[in-house]
């Protein structure tokens, strides 16, 4: 079941298996469901105030949004590379990839700090209008997930430094990685919906 260590890199040749932990995937699915609700709610409220949403959207810094997207995409790449390294038994590389991924996650938070700061300094808050309400609430909730995911990665990094993950034991790092990729996935939508879609 979940506890059995399964070796072998995932490839077309090897039998299909779910990376990580099935019950963590159930948790991830619950999160995806909730965010699906968020996205649909946003689109619905936007549909009744298109002009307002389009107008207010111009106040967002698209470049920062794109930067954040690239930070998370690269972070995900680093994390999955760490998982692959563990599977291949390249134990030293694992914490290095993870550290890089964590650093990028922290960079995301820093960008958000400046982004929110700029808005608040300009007097734009969660009560400014419906668009900004969604902007602050959705990116805020997502940011909490980035923080949580970074903490998970940090714990995994500590384990990786202790050489816990290797060819026969990758369930833990895979489970943590799958949560992090979910965080990345959600931001792809947030970037498109909040920053770009007109």
């Amino acid at each position, binding site marked *: 079941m979940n506890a059995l260590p399964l070796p072998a890199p995932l490839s077309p040749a090897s039998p299909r298996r779910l990376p990580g932990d099935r019950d963590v995937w*159930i*948790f991830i699915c619950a999160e995806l469901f909730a965010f699906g609700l968020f996205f649909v709610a946003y689109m619905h409220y936007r549909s009744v105030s298109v002009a307002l949403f389009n107008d207010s959207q111009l106040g967002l810094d698209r470049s920062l949004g794109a930067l954040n997207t690239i930070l998370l995409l690269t972070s995900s790449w680093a994390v999955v590379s760490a998982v692959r390294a563990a599977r291949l038994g390249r134990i030293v590389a694992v914490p290095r990839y993870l550290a890089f991924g964590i650093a990028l996650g922290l960079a995301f938070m820093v960008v958000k700090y400046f982004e929110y700061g700029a808005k608040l300094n300009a007097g734009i808050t969660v009560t400014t209008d*419906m668009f900004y309400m969604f902007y602050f609430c959705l990116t805020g909730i997502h940011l909490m997930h980035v923080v949580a995911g970074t903490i998970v990665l940090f714990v995994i990094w500590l384990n990786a430094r202790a050489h816990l993950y290797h060819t026969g034991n990758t369930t833990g790092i895979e489970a943590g990685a799958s949560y992090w990729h979910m965080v990345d996935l959600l931001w792809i939508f947030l970037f498109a919906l909040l920053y770009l879609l007109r």
Partner: protein
Amino acid sequence: MDEKTSLKYQMLCAWSGPLFLVAFIYFWGMMGFNLPAPPSPALGAGELAARYVEHLGGIRVGFLVSMIVMTLYIPWTAVLSVQMMRIEGRSPVLALIQLIGGALTVPVVSISSVFWVAAAYRPQRAPEITQALTDSGWLIIDTLWACTTWQMVAAAVAGLHDKSAKPLFPRWLCFVTIFCGLSFAPATMTGILKTGPFAWDGVLSFYFPYFCWLFWFAFASVYMILEVARRRQALDFPSPSSSARLAHA
């Protein structure tokens, strides 16, 4: 008290779960007229006052009874605490966190209902006062969610450490429990917003989190009842396997 009698009381406590579920939805939700939808925070004071006048009987009875119904959470939390203590052993800190969280959930939900009863108490008064009382009720129940979250997360964590042959909660439910406990977080925005999905009548502060809460509560109740039933059966029909199970627990 012998084990058999104790288990009888534990079973009664576990069954307070389903009873609470049904009664709460009926009295708090339907009679109190929070279903299909709570009063919108964007309503004018006059409209809100009119809502009370129109549904006065139901609102009064619904919330007065739901305050009593809410106390069913007490025996339910107690039996869950006992079940968690069996998992934890000598220093059951998680069970205690769960106990405190569950106990505090009772006033959070009950006292908010008191405010709505107070709002309905003098229907002819200045509507702004009625509105302030209504606001207070909703803000109490929606911003104090964290107490319940502690109860849920503690139960989930203990559940994950249950190494018995037949654990109290299946592993997937433990993770879903954590998710459900965290699903309340957006409700904090009810303290600021009056429209949209995060207002106290919105899908993300009302329908979804309350659903998650009761969904967890329902599933947890089922597994809690089954666990007490297993122990009762082991007592009645002791066998090598059942005593092994008891030894693990």
